[in-house]
């Protein structure tokens, strides 16, 4: 076996590790040995007092409960806020703490499979927060990983890949997911548009207001109330929809004894699956697929974190007019980046075209280049950089590169943001 192919679901409360097993060609989840919480590994870090010894997960809890250490929790939101934690009079940057946590977490699969290396890791996050994503990439770099070994996707995308990795009957019609955790109740709905090529797989996500604290499930009356809330919610969301499968995940569905009414409703003519490892497994599927030359999923996948439009420009190449794709619909915004070099011929504008999935309208975006030095035709080379700051917000940067020794570059540049 070469290196491990991992999917890591990194949340504020718990983390999970999924592994793509190339022998059975499927994703499997993993747990810490001696863990009580199955595959859920608490996202906490504990430093043993007076020593440079750190623990994660249940062991961290135990160390803190015994009074032997100082624990830091909510590591993910701490990083998102760019926070610090004070441990034994010394302040630690949140990013450094998350780095320690992940370094220890990676030992789980490495020890389990007695492996020396990890080939690919896909992180799954509840929300694609740019601060957290940048931190993850930086800290993984410090842990010795190359940028191309790391990918970051959201829960929505993990759900999408998890479902389309299952048998087709399961997603013949729509598929839904209820994710109930301390963070709240999240609902995801997957649809496939089959009348086009490539087929379009789309997942919509809603954070539901009906979320409740999981503490209420500890009492019978609280469980009944939660069941009632959830049943109403299910009826509202699934009414008149052709749903083939319903997935239940999150700590709230660790047991479903409290949700009789809800289960009775959703199990009617639908297949229902409950489990805790959906996101980590979904990430592991993505990890494996991203290592292949051609994807096993011949679809345009649209979901949170993915661009809904194709952005292109028109330029001549070898004497023929061509469309140069700068970003394709269905690409993860964080990874959508294009750099092209063009020669400007008798125009003061760079024109980009945006074709949005599901819309027949073509939108033209114009970047004015009037501030660049006046030169004879075809003697201004420009570098066009297109990147995204969100799935619907595109940055276009155009840099004047001159024309070799013949016309020196001015160093001027134009930067514009477009909502697409």
């Amino acid at each position, binding site marked *: 076996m070469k290196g491990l192919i991992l999917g890591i679901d990194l949340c504020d409360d718990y983390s999970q590790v999924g592994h793509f097993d190339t022998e059975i060609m499927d994703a499997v989840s993993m747990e810490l040995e001696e863990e009580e919480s199955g595959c859920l590994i608490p996202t906490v870090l504990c430093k043993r007092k007076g020593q440079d010894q750190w623990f994660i997960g249940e062991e961290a809890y135990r160390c803190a409960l015994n009074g032997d250490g100082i624990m830091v929790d909510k590591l993910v939101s701490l990083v998102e806020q760019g926070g610090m934690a004070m441990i034994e009079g010394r302040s630690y940057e949140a990013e450094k703490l998350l780095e320690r946590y992940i370094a220890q977490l990676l030992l789980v699969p490495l020890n389990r499979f007695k492996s020396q290396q990890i080939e690919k890791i896909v992180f799954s996050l509840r929300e694609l927060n740019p601060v957290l994503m940048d931190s993850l990439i930086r800290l993984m770099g410090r842990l010795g990983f190359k940028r191309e070994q790391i990918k970051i996707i959201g829960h929505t995308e993990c759900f999408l890949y998890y479902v389309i990795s299952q048998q087709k009957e399961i997603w013949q019609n729509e598929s839904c997911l209820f994710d109930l955790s301390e963070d709240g109740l999240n609902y995801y709905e997957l649809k496939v548009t089959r009348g086009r090529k490539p087929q379009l797989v789309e997942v919509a996500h809603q954070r539901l207001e009906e979320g409740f604290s999981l503490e209420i499930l500890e009492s019978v009356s609280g469980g009944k109330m939660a069941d009632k809330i959830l049943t109403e919610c299910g009826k509202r969301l699934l009414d008149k929809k052709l749903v083939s499968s319903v997935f239940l995940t999150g700590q709230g569905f660790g047991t479903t004894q409290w949700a009789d009414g809800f289960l009775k409703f959703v199990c009617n003519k639908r297949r229902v699956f409950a489990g805790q490892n959906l996101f980590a497994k979904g990430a592991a599927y993505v990890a494996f697929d991203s290592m292949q030359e051609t994807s096993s999923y011949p679809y345009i996948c649209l979901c949170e974190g993915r661009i809904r439009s194709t952005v292109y420009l028109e330029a001549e*190449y070898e004497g023929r007019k061509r469309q*140069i794709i700068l970003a394709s619909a269905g690409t993860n915004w964080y990874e959508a980046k294009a750099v092209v070099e*063009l020669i*400007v011929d008798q125009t003061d504008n*760079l024109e980009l075209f945006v074709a949005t999935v599901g819309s027949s309208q073509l939108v033209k975006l114009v970047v004015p280049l009037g501030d660049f030095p006046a030169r004879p035709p*075809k*003697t201004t*080379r420009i570098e066009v950089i297109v990147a995204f700051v969100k799935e619907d917000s595109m940055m276009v940067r155009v840099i004047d590169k001159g024309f070799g*020794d*013949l016309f020196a570059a001015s160093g001027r540049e134009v930067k514009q943001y477009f909502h697409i």
Partner: protein
Amino acid sequence: MGRMILCRAGKASVPYYVHDLGLHLYTAEELCYYIYNNLFLLNEDFLGEPLFRFIGEELKLKRLEEKVRALAKGGEFTAALLEILKDICYYNEQELEEFKKRCEKLKRSKPYEVLKNRGDYMAGQKKYKKALWYYDRILNSRNQKEIPASYLGKVWYNKGACYAGIFSPQEAASCFIKAYGLLKDDSILKELYLLSRMWPEAGEIKLLEAVPSKQQYDWTEEFDSLKARSLSQGKPLEAQIACQKDRMRRKAAVEEVLSRWKKEYRDME
């Protein structure tokens, strides 16, 4: 109608050096631009090993290299240039037609016309020494009798201007005198007068003795006004700005200006 052209991927790590202009070409597009706009500077020597290597190895255009090699071997200079322009597609059909016409015109040009064009281009680029080399090739040629006197006069005049450009007033004056002898143009006398005012070391110019005092007075006034104006622009202004810097920055500013001027002077080679 405006358009964008997608750049070819290849950018040379070892660029093609254009000796005449003292510049490097890094891309296929720059090569096309150079050929298209400097046709009169090119001759059969251009189609040599450095160009073939640049096209084949640096720009990774192996097939084009082979074609150009074959055409060069067959002595088809214009066809080889056209092949480069066509293959790289930097110029459109209309522009290529125009280039063909210029090639035809160049073929019909007399050798001294080609040389003067090259000299004039170099002078325009402030490559004065290169320009002098071309002018001398005309003036030293054995077939001078074929060249009309007025044409030779222009060559002498341009040669004089180049000498003035490299701060050689005596040589400049001598060329202007020869140009005047052939062209009998009074504006050359004026140039001579201004030259002698600017650089007394140009020596006594007998021709100017015949210029009426009134004319000389007018030219003196013009010279003084030009001199006064020039003090507040161009190089004098650059020098003034550098000298006006505070004590801490003055030395660096003056050195920067001087090194730039030295470079400009060296680039005149």
